[in-house]
C-alpha cells in the first residue's frame, strides 16, 4: 500500500508539474503573440500567470514553478485516490 501511494504521489506531482509548465508556457506565448488583454491567473497570494498587454516575453518554464505547491497537493490526492481504488479493485476481485 505504501509503495502504491508513494509511486502515485511522485508520478502525479511530476506529471502535473510538467503539464503546468507546458500550459503556462503555451498560454503565455499565445497571449503575447495574440496581444490579449491583461489578465492574472492565481489562487490567493500565488500568481500562476500574469499577462500584461503590450509587454513581450517574460514567459518561460520558470513561470510554472508557482504551480509546484499545487502539484504536490494534487499529487498527494492522486496517491490517496490510487490507494482507495486499488483497495476497491482488490475487494471486487
Amino acid at each position, binding site marked *: 500500500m505504501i509503495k502504491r501511494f508513494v*509511486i502515485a504521489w511522485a508520478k502525479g506531482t511530476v506529471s*502535473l508539474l510538467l503539464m503546468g509548465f507546458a500550459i503556462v508556457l503555451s498560454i503565455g506565448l499565445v497571449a503575447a503573440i495574440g496581444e490579449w488583454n491583461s489578465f492574472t491567473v492565481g489562487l490567493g497570494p500565488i500568481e500562476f500567470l500574469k499577462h500584461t498587454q503590450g509587454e513581450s516575453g517574460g514567459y518561460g518554464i520558470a513561470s510554472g514553478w508557482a504551480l509546484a505547491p499545487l502539484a504536490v497537493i494534487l499529487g498527494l490526492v492522486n496517491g490517496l485516490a490510487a490507494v482507495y481504488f486499488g483497495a476497491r479493485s482488490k475487494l471486487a476481485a
Partner: protein
Amino acid sequence: MLWAVLLQSEYRRVKRAVLDLARTNPIILVAIVAVAAGFVALAVRSADFFALLSIVPGGLSGFSILLLLVGSVTGYTFSLTLPKEKYFDEQFRLTTVRPIEMLAGLRGLPLLLVVGVTAVPFVAMMWRVYALVTVPAPGVWAGVFALLYLTAALQGAAVSEVLRGCRSWRLFAIASSALAGTLAMSFLASSRVEDPWYWLATYLPAASIDSDGFAIAIRPVVYVAAAAAAVSAALSVTAWTAYSLRPDPPMRRRRVAFSVPIGTGPLTAFPAWAMLTILRQGESRGLLALTFLTGIGATALLSRWPHSGTVPVLVLLTSTLTLLLTAVVVLTFSEDRFAGSWLIKTVPTSGTLIGLAWWITVSVLTAAIGSLAVGPSIVGFSEGGGYIASALLLIAYASSTTIVGLLLPWSRQSPFRQLVATVALIAGASVAYYVVQSVAQLGTTLGSDGMAVVTSGLLLLVVAGALSVTIESLGSRSTASVGPH
C-alpha cells in the same frame, strides 16, 4: 468480419490501459482530459490571431503547412506505437487470416481514429480562420484541409514504416511510387504562387498582396481542390498500406562479433552498447529519425518563412520539441523499459559505477543527438552567442530530464528506496532551481547572459548526475544488505 474482431481487441487493449490509469493515477487522467479540452478551446480562440497572419504575404499558406506538418508527425508517432504484426505471426500462420484484414483491424482503423480525433481542433480552427478571412464556403475548405491533414498523417506513418524496413521490393516500389506521386502532384500544381513552401499546401487558400497593397485571397476552384486532395489521400493510403504489408520473416538469432576497442569497464561499455542499440532497434531508430527530421525540417521551413516576429518563437518551440524528442530517444534505455533493464540488472559492478556510467551515457548521447538535431537552427538563426548558449542550456536540460526519467521511482521494488528517491528528486530540483535563478540574476547584473545560461545548464547536469549516482549506490547497498536467501 475478422477485422472487426481485431478492432475490438484493440479497443479492449486501450480500454484496459485507460481503466488502469484511472485506477492507479486518477488525477492524472482528469488532468489529461482537462488539458485536451483546454487545447481545443485555445486553438479556436487563437484563430483570430492566425487570421491576422493571412495579411502577411505567405502567412496563411505557411500556417497551413505548419499544421500539416503536425499531422505528419502525429501519423509518424502513432505508427510507432501501434502493435506489430510480428508479435502475432506464430498465431496467424496457423489460421487463414488475410494480411489486409489484420492490417485493417490492428493498425489501419486505430490509426485513422487517432488521427481523426487529433484533427478536430485544427479543423475547427481552420474553419474559423477561413470564415474570418472571408473565403467563400469556409466549411467546404475546412473539409479539404481535413482531407489533406489525413494525407499528411498517412505520409508520416508511411515514412515511419520505411524506417522499420520493407522486405518486399515489389511492395516497396508500389509504395514509393505512390508516395512520390502525392508530392509530385502537389509540386506541379503550385507553379502559380510564389509563396515559399506553398507547394506543400497547394490545394488550400493562400493570401497575397495586390498592386494597390491590399490583401487578397487566392484559392483554387473548390471542386478541383477537393478532387486533388482526394487523389492525394488515396495515393497516401496506398503508400502506407503497401509499406505495412511487408511479410515478417521467422525470428532468428544473429551473433555479431563485437570487436570495437571499447574496453570492458561499465564506463565505456555502457555508452557504446547504448549507441549501437539506438541504431539497431526499430523504435529507437524511428524516434531518432523523427528528431533529426524535426530539427532539419523546421530549419528548412523557417528559413524561407516571411520575416516577422513569430519566427524566433517558432524556432524556440521547435528546438525545445526536438530536444524533448532527443530525451525520449535516450529514455528507451531507462530501467523501466525493455532495452536497458537486462544490462543494468546483470552488470557485476557497484551501484556507484552503474550510476556514473548511466549519467555519462545519457549526457553524451543526448548532447550529441541534440546538437546534431538543433545544429541547423543554431547556424541558421543565431544572432550572437545568446541563442547558442540558450540551445546549450536546453541540451543540458534535456539531459537532466533524461536522467530524471531514470530517477523517477516508478518501478522500484523497495518502498524505502522509492521514498528516498522521491525526496532526493524534489530536493535536487529545488536546489538546482535556486542555483539557476541565482546564477541567472548574477549573469544579468554582469551583462553576460550567455555565460550564465551555460553555467546554469552545467550545474543542472552536475546536480542530476550526483542524484543518479547516489540513488544507484543506495540501491546497491539495500540489495547487498538483504543478501541471498
